[in-house]
């Protein structure tokens, strides 16, 4: 790394200037070099991650009138949030969506990745099939979500097909604008985020380990539970983090797929913003952030991702 940053000597005037007081990163103490190298990233993270979060925390203590916000240090926003039974209900609902979606995407994602990694023999086909999985992502996720609405509707394709097949007599009402449709959309939208990291770790499993397991007389199931799953854990964890954070932070899927009838935390925040209640929205965001961090830290207790990678 350090070599590449050294000036190229062919630039004549610059090279002369440096000849007097040669400056090279390799002459600096290692600690300083390290800090300098990480500086760009530190700056980016500071300005675009830490600063905004700090602002949100600050604003969450401010007050709001109907059309303006004013600096203050008050706990009103938190007080209202934490004393309202609706808040707990909504957080519970958010966690419910996250858990169910996580479980379903994990099963589907693991199966798909397993098939790609171990059943498809040639690399070409693996790549082809993997790309096939990503094709839906070439369209906007809002479109993929909304296209479910006419499909699941009272007079939609799903209901009319089931009726004409004689499976049901009356259209199923719970297909659309329900928890079912919300979770269906989540699974549809986010399964790929589970497939990719799991597939990635599976591809790096040394095949000889599986051979060894078979040679030692392990059955297919035993190989799966004792060899493949433990070795795939980092991928599962990364996928889980993706899915859980995406679902917990979502608001638009819940709004469209439940016909505005269900709420999650994202919708609370978006309602507040629409009504100019920025401090209250900020307070909700802070609580959500804490919740998500807690969930992730629990997840990380199971696997040390750094070590596994």
């Amino acid at each position: 790394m350090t070599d590449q940053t050294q000036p190229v000597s062919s630039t004549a005037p610059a090279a002369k200037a440096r000849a007097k007081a040669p400056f090279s990163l390799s002459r600096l103490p290692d600690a300083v070099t390290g800090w300098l190298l990480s500086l760009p990233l530190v700056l980016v993270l500071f300005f675009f991650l830490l600063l905004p979060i700090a602002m949100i925390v600050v604003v969450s203590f401010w007050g709001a009138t109907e059309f303006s916000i004013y600096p203050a240090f008050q706990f009103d926003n938190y007080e209202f949030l934490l004393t309202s039974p609706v808040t707990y209900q909504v957080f519970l609902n958010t966690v419910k969506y996250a858990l169910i979606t996580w479980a379903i995407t994990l099963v589907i994602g693991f199966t798909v990745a397993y098939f790609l990694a171990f059943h498809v023999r040639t690399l070409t086909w693996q790549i082809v099939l993997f790309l096939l999985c990503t094709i839906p992502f070439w369209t906007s996720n809002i479109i993929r979500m909304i296209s479910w609405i006419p499909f699941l509707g009272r007079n939609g394709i799903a209901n009319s097909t089931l009726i004409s097949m004689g499976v049901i007599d009356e259209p199923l009402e719970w297909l659309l604008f329900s928890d079912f449709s919300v979770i269906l959309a989540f699974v549809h939208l986010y399964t790929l985020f589970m497939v990719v990291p799991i597939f990635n770790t599976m591809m790096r499993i040394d095949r000889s380990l599986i051979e060894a397991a078979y040679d030692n007389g392990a059955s297919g199931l035993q190989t799966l539970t004792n060899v493949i799953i433990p070795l795939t854990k980092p991928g599962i964890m990364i996928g889980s983090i993706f899915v859980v954070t995406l679902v917990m932070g979502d608001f638009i899927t819940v709004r469209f797929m439940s016909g505005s009838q269900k709420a999650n935390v994202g919708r609370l925040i978006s309602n507040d913003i629409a009504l100019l209640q920025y401090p209250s929205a900020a307070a909700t965001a802070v609580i959500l952030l804490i919740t998500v961090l807690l969930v992730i830290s629990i997840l990380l207790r199971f696997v040390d991702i750094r070590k596994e990678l």
Partner: protein
Amino acid sequence: MTDKVATTDQMTKTGVSRRSILKGGAAVAGAALGSGAITGFPTVWAQNIKDVTLRQFGTGVSNLNEVAQKVKEDLGFNLEMTALDSDAVTQRAATQPDSFDIADIEYWICKKVWPTGNLQAMDTSKIKNYDKIVGIFKSGKLTPDSVVAQGTAPNTVGFVDGPDGKAFAKEETGWMTLIPTIYNADTLGIRPDLIGRPIESWTELLNPEFKGKASILDISSIGIMDAAMVCEAMGEIQYGDKGNMTREEIDKTMAIFTEAKKNGQFRAFWKTFDESVNLMASGEVVIQSMWSPAITAVKSRGIECVYQPLKEGYRSWGGGIGLSKSLTGLELEAAYEYINWYLDGWVGGFLMRQGYYSAVPETSKNYMDENEWGYWFEGKEATGDITSPFGDVLAKAGDTRDGGSFYDRMGAVACWNSVMDENQYMVRKWNEFIAA
């Protein structure tokens, strides 16, 4: 209609800085002040005004590209239109006064935004058709013997004491906050083919017969009104003023609706025009709060849909144009020019042919044929096809408008869209209802 609402259009953008033109043109504009504003068509400063660009924003209903095009044709200057939803409009009018020149807002938004001082009062002596503006926006009375409805009636927030007035005046003062442009009477939309019996009252929205097939709009300030109309019609609550409820009244109203929601009365809530159209057209919902052009949109798909007049009356709304505080000089004159043009009839006719009403109906008449005027305004049977300005056939010969004539509909207004003193409390309760 639906597409147009969503798009943000810009007319030709001039490369020259607006402000620099303004400085140069101010002197000329001053000289032309009298003549230009009154004749309605600029002559002396025609060259300068060409370079003026007015930035208008507002809700989708009247922010139509056709209007901007016609302004360019008739008046010569540019109008940039931005369409937003009512929450965003309020937000922008209240917090970003320099981001617009003309605010096309509703009267209840005006009540919220006026105290911020971001808008300036308008001199009615410069408004050519002021005398012809419908009584609703001046005395508050449609006809001399009508009663002013509850809620934020336009006349209650339509005037201030003087050019810098902060408080709303009770009578006409010569200084208007908004120049009324568009208004209508809203009620419930129904699918008569799926209901199969007459609907006469607001109570039907919560009738268990329509369990899982009803909807209400999820815009708190309007939704609470529809809810109040229902609760009052059911005889459950007697409101002092539906447009300005007490906390207790809000609690009771939301309790009734929360219970209905938990019992599965509602199929969905809608927030945008398109959502309401889709819910109705797909048959997911057979009765719901709705806006007039949404009914039209459903009908134009060949699906039966009625904007059902109800015995308890209508919930009405009105919008108008307000001028930004920072508008001065040539641009201010251009804005007056625009307002005079707006009331001159072309826009009125354009809007009335979509089912809205114009603030000065008699000038709009010049831009509508007899059949259209009879159908939309007088409530008569159509004598031929009624088409929207966009070319869709909305009604055939023999049809009459739901609710009848202008005086039948606007004379039966029970309540105006409003913003309450307990607004923040109401909003929180509404959010709880949505989350419940």
